[in-house]
Structure formats: structure tokens, C-alpha cells
């Protein structure tokens, strides 16, 4: 491993960023970041979500302007007037969010701006599909119908068309932001074959990916980003080292220690004979101060169980006891107001939990507006104070409480959701895959928050698609398969291997 010289000093650089900074609202996406790529190299850009990779690509691709710093082409500072200007200078970019026009055909999308024209200068619409077919075939793509609308082809096909559109323009600098995220292995091979061809022709290729094996299979050099700036550029680096540099933390320090369950354990939530699909039933009991994990393969009834406990929609045939008292839950309002208060934090924050255009404060206080209101008028002072306390105590990173939730990062949105239920005094928390799509630093904060909630005596039912999380964060783990609990583990038997083995075992095998 050798740390290359400061990027801006690289005399061989075809494209370089010199001390770029960029802020969105109160969030600093890039902090004096520098980067350089040479002709004829494949340069991987790696880092956590929110490390600034996409922002850097957008600036280099002409889609955003930096607040300060320069973009250099062949050593000269340039001001990119926009994506079209960048394209004229030989920079081709495949942005992370796809830019195909949904109601136009694959051919129109592929050839936009370079359509075949008649002597009068008019586009020969009848010739579009044939030309597109030829262009795609030249790149080894035979399975995509150029006459289909972009919205009619699969996500992977759209991704491929997007890449094809950029590379047929023969850029000398190719920027690819997460080009493989929706591709299967065979398609990734296709993409990498094209990348290697372009490299051989002297193109400078910059790409981002979260899949380490892809990075090592095609990248000549790797630059690691953390927190809006480069950490270093390497010819080779092993994964553990890279993860440490990306997160600023060693992997084993990620999980905080579990607090002990108070004894004697007081059952907070008891569930008997709940039907969650495939004709099976689930019974379980969570004590105050306990984190009970639920693991298993996707689609085995987890979602039905978690949503059902929240009454959205209610569980079939279930007996639910809260603090020992039987209750009936038919809708979320029942769950929120039940004895100790049940709260659900779903994985899909955007559609199931938060009102994105509304402020952090409103999102926090929504369920307790009745308590905060006098004769239907909200007491602004009390609302502001209570939301301030939650923002501070959970470390929600937002410029102020009036910020729309949609402007926060995924992890911070998740904290707002949890904070909402703390304000509502919920004693039973249902956390459903809450760390999905959240970067490692924020994950760590969410883990610490879970421990704090457990120490306060809250009962937590926790589902995660990441088995490592379950084994490190739970007192016990149940494995759900086809709507039934097929195994239960507690330390020391609680290991990721054991949970996975139980999840994939055939339920009726001898």
C-alpha cells in the first residue's frame, strides 16, 4: 500500500478536482476534496453513503457547481457550464439517478442529440430504431428492443441503455456513479468488458461502487472518501483496511455492549398464536429492557408480524397482552394508545412513517398534538421545547427544527421516527430493518440509541435483514420461517451461522 501524492499535484491527471467544497442547506457534502484520474486508468471512488462521492461526480460531470475549488482538465482550471458543456469537453457521465426519458423510446433516448437527419435537417424518425439497433449491437447488446419505451424495459436494461448512451459518444473521461447497482453478474461482466476496452483506448474512467469484489476486479487505483473529503488514493488495499478508512472505526467497535435485562423480567408484550401467513402461528414474549431479535429469510412473515402488532392491518386470531393485560388492536391508533404504547419504526421511512415536506418538529410531535393543544390550538412553546430536547438527545443532525425532514440524511430521518415515539412515551418499540440503507457511522448511533432505550426499560422487538446486527444487538433471537418460529438462540449459541442455518433449513426435514 502506498499513499499517492496529493491529487492536485498529479501531473498525469486528465481530470482533477482541487479542494472542492459544496454544501446543501446546512449539510456540507464536500469539504475541500481533491481527486485526480489519469488517461487509460480505471479509478474507483469508494466511501460510505454521504461521503461525497455522488456530489463529486456531479460536479465533475457539470451538473453541479462547487461552492469553492476548481475542476481541472489536463491541468487547466475550467468552469463547466452544465452537462452539455462537460460533454463538449469530452466528459461523459452516467449519473446515479437514471436520466432516461420514460415516455420516449429506447432509440430516442440512446440517440438524443445525434439523431439521423434528412437533407432538410429533420430527424428521420423511421430510421431511429434501426440506427439504435446497430449502435447497441456494436456494444454487444442484442436483447433490448429499441422501439420499446424506456419505461417498458427493466431497470437493468435502462441502466445498460444509460451506459450505452454515454459510451457511444466516445468520451475521453467517463464518470459512472453506481453503474452496477441494478445489474446482475452477467451484465456487470458486460459493463466491465466495455470499461476495459475504453481503458485500452486511453479513456480515463472513474466509477463508484459498494461491491468490493467489483472494485478489485476492474480498478487500477482506489480513492477512499470519508465525510466529504478524500482519505487517500491506493494502488491496492485490502477490504478491512478500506472499511476502517471509510468509517474511521474498526469493524468490531461498531456494536456497543448490550445492557443486561433487569430481573425478574417483567413481560411488556406477549403475543399468542398470531397468524402471520402460510398457516403458521407465532407466540412470543418480550420483557421490559429486552431486545428480542427476529431473523430469517425475507418474506417469511416478518413484515406481517411487525405491521400486525401495530394494527396495520391487524393480526389474525392473535391474543396480545401488554403488561399482562389482554388488549385488542384493530388499527394503529389502538397500538399507539395501548397501555404502554406500541410504536413502529418501518424500513421504508418515506412511505410509511414520515411526512417529508414537513418540518422535523411537526414530524416529531404529530402523534402527541392532542396533548400539546389547548382548544385545538397548538402550544408552540411546548412543541418547540419538546422537539428541541429530542433533537439534542438523539443527536439528530439538522440545522434547526423547522428543516423539512426530506432534507435530512436517511439515518437522521430514522432518528426522527424513533424520536417521535419517545415523545409519545411508547414503551414497546417495533424496529423493522431500521438500518437498511443507512451509512455505518449513523448505524452506530442508532445501535447506541437502541441500547439506551433498553436501559430505560423499553421493550424492543427488532427485525433486521443483516444477521450480524441481530447477533450483536439482541438478548435473544427468534428465527421465523413460513410464518412459524423454527428456532430460538441466546448467547453463547447465538451466532450468525446458527441463525442463517436455521433460516434455510427445510421446516419438515428429518
Amino acid at each position, binding site marked *: 500500500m502506498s499513499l499517492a501524492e496529493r491529487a492536485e499535484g498529479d501531473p498525469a491527471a486528465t481530470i482533477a478536482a482541487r479542494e472542492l467544497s459544496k454544501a446543501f442547506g446546512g449539510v456540507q457534502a464536500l469539504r475541500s476534496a481533491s481527486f485526480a484520474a489519469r488517461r487509460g486508468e480505471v479509478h474507483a471512488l469508494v466511501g460510505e453513503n454521504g461521503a461525497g462521492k455522488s456530489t463529486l461526480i456531479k460536479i465533475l460531470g457539470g451538473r453541479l457547481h462547487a461552492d469553492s475549488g476548481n475542476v481541472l482538465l489536463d491541468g487547466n482550471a475550467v468552469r463547466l457550464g452544465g452537462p*452539455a458543456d462537460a460533454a463538449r469537453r469530452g466528459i461523459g457521465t452516467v449519473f446515479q439517478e437514471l436520466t432516461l426519458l420514460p415516455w420516449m423510446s429506447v432509440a430516442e433516448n440512446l440517440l438524443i442529440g445525434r439523431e439521423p437527419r434528412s437533407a432538410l435537417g429533420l430527424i428521420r424518425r423511421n430510421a431511429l430504431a434501426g440506427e439504435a439497433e446497430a449502435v447497441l449491437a456494436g456494444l*454487444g447488446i442484442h436483447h433490448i428492443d429499441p422501439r420499446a419505451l424506456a419505461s417498458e424495459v427493466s431497470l437493468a436494461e435502462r441502466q445498460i441503455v444509460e451506459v450505452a448512451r454515454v459510451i457511444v459518444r466516445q468520451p475521453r473521461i467517463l464518470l459512472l456513479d453506481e453503474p452496477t447497482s441494478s445489474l446482475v453478474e452477467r451484465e456487470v461482466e458486460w459493463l466491465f*468488458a466495455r470499461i476495459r476496452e475504453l481503458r485500452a483506448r486511453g479513456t480515463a474512467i472513474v466509477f463508484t461502487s459498494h461491491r468490493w469484489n467489483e472494485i478489485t476486479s476492474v480498478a487500477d487505483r482506489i480513492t477512499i472518501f470519508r465525510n466529504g473529503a478524500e482519505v487517500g488514493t491506493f494502488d491496492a488495499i485490502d477490504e478491512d483496511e478500506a472499511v476502517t478508512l471509510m468509517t474511521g472505526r474498526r469493524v468490531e467497535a461498531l456494536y456497543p455492549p448490550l445492557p443486561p435485562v433487569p430481573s425478574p423480567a417483567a413481560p411488556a408484550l406477549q403475543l399468542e398464536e398470531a397468524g402471520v401467513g402460510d398457516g403458521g402461528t407465532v407466540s412470543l414474549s418480550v420483557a421490559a429492557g429486552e431486545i428480542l431479535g427476529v431473523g430469517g429469510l425475507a418474506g417469511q412473515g416478518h413484515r406481517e408480524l411487525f405491521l400486525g402488532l401495530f394494527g396495520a392491518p391487524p393480526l389474525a386470531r392473535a391474543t396480545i397482552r401488554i403488561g399482562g393485560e389482554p388488549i385488542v388492536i384493530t388499527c394503529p391508533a389502538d397500538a399507539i394508545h395501548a397501555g404502554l404504547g406500541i410504536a413502529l419504526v418501518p424500513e421504508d421511512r418515506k412511505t410509511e412513517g414520515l411526512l417529508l415536506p414537513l418540518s422535523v418538529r411537526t414530524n416529531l410531535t404529530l402523534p402527541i398534538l392532542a396533548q400539546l393543544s389547548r382548544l385545538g390550538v397548538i402550544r408552540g412553546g411546548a412543541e418547540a421545547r419538546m422537539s428541541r430536547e429530542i433533537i439534542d438527545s438523539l443527536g439528530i443532525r439538522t440545522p434547526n427544527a423547522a428543516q423539512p425532514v426530506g432534507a435530512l440524511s436517511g439515518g437522521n430521518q430514522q432518528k426522527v421516527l424513533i424520536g417521535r415515539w419517545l415523545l409519545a412515551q411508547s414503551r414497546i418499540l417495533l424496529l423493522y430493518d431500521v438500518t437498511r440503507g443507512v451509512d455505518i457511522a449513523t448505524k452506530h448511533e442508532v445501535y447506541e440509541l437502541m441500547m439506551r432505550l433498553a436501559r430505560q426499560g423499553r421493550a424492543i422487538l427488532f427485525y433486521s435483514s443483516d444477521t450480524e446486527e441481530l447477533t450483536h444487538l439482541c438478548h435473544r433471537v427468534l428465527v421465523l420461517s413460513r410464518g412459524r418460529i423454527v428456532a430460538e438462540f441466546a448467547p453463547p449459541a447465538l451466532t450468525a451461522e446458527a441463525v442463517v442455518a436455521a433460516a434455510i433449513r427445510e421446516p419438515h426435514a428429518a
Partner: protein
Amino acid sequence: MPPDAAATLAARPQRRPRAAHVLGQNIGLVLAAAILLASAVVFTLMFVIQQQRLPGSFEITSTVNNTMPLAVAAIGQTVVVLTRGIDLSVGGVIDLTNALAAIFLAGSPLHMIVVSILVVLVGAGAGLVNGLLVGLGRLQPIVVTLATLSIFQGLAIRVLPQPGGSVPAGYTNLLVNPDAPTALIFLAVAILGWMALRRSRLGVELFAVGNDEAAAVALGVNALRTKIVAYSIAGALYAVAGLFLAANATSGDATTGNSYTLTSIVAVVLGGVSLFGGRGSAIGAICGAFITTMIVNILFYAHINPLYQAFYEGLFLVVAVVLGSLIGNLLRRRG
């Protein structure tokens, strides 16, 4: 440069036939033409039953002449709607240009040509104002054009406080000849113009902006310029509609254009142009304009009290749109 086999993505066994794509991607236009045909058939049947003869040159000519202002206005509305906008100022621009035409047209042939061009430029200028407010001001089209609708209406009243003015007979005969449906020539020109636009860079950009503005910008489309041009073209077309209206009435009225705000949107919807932008055809909108005229004709021969006309028009619109959406969904699922 044939890439090596491992790096080739194999052919899919079968593809939808080309005709299926053409039908599926123009379903709005096909439905509009079908509705137009059906309403023409219904009208003809009613006419034959009551008049004991087929509709002749007079009926065809008056249908064409009465539809021309709406057909032209609907093309303008289409251009705006394609960018995912909407233009409520149609009525105001037609009022204003209609009033200007009635006052200033009378004169020599050269004078009439010059005045016509100036009136069209006034319409384009009105559209430019809309485009600048929507584009530069980043304001919502519905709010901007609602406001400018009132402004243009106010200006029209100022220009022509009382119905009046006069349009020379020669001008009327040229635009809306009462003896033969020669106005169809103008319609043919409009359709050719649309087909050229569809095959131009501007046309591609109009559709691109309406499909996904952010994506279009990432592709190097100047969305601001495209929108300003779209509203300006639309304004010019509304002015042409105002001229046709003046020619048809042979005099001016500063309120006669008001109804075109709603009817132009009705025509666009019936014509299969998506109000979400990026999909549709001016040819469909022209069909939509003729459908609305046909509905009026049918109501007339059905002896519906004119006071209930709006009621039945609205009813028909709802039925047509719901049916169209159902059929469209059905075909899409089949395809």
C-alpha cells in the same frame, strides 16, 4: 469491433412486433380518432333521420369553420402541456387578438397582412410573458397563466370596450370561406408544421422537458429556453385562433374568446395528450377540437335545450376520458 462472446448480452427470444409498439405508443391519438369517427357517425345518423338527406358541403364547411379557432388554440395548448405546463391564458390572448384584429384589420390587402403578422406577434409576446414568468420566475404555470388570463382579458376590454369593429369580407373568405371547407388547407399546413416540429431539435426538447425536466437538463437540454419558446409558440397560435374567430364573426368581441381556456384543455385531453407532460400529439388535439364541435352539433339535432348544453358536454367529456383510460389500460396490459 465485435466484442468477445462472454461480454455480449444475448438476444431475447422474441420481440413485440413493430405495429404493436406504434399502436401502444400512439393509443391516445388512435382513441381520439375513433371517438371523432363515432361522433361523426352519430351526428350523420341524426342528421339523415331529421333532414332526410346526407350532410352536404354547407354542414361540412360550417363545422370546419366553427372548429378552426379551437383547433388552432388546442395545438398551442398541446405545445405547452407537452412541457408539463398548462396555459389558462388562452381565453385572454384570443380576446385581445380578436379585438385588435376587429379594430385594425380593415384596409388594403397588404395592410391586412401586416396587421395579421403584428397581431400574431402580440400573441407571441403574451406567450413570452407567460414563458418568462414560468421559466425564469420558477412559478407554477397554473398560477401564472390564471393571472395573465385576467390581465389579457382586461387589456382586451380596454382595446374594444363594446363589441364592434369589422373584418373585411375578403379576409373572411380567405380564412373561413363560407362556401367551401378551404380552411382545411390551413389545418393541413398546421399538421405539416407539427410533423416538422416533432422532427426538430426543439420538438425533442419539448418532449424531453415534459418527460423529466431534471433528466433533460442532465442531458444538456436548456429547459428554461424550451419552456419560454413553448409558451411563445402557444401565444402566437392563440393569436391565429383569434384571427380565425374574428374572420368567422366578421366583427370583434373582447369576451368571445373566454370559453377557449376550458375548451382548449378539453380538446387536448380528448386528443390523448397527457396532462403530466411528455406524451401526445397536436393531431390528437385537432381531433379533440372536432369532437367538441361534433358534440355541440349532436346536442343541437337532439333538441337539447341550449341551457343544458354545458351539462351534456361535461358528461360526455367524463365518459370519454374514463372510457379512454379503461381502453388504454386494457391494451397496455395485453401488449
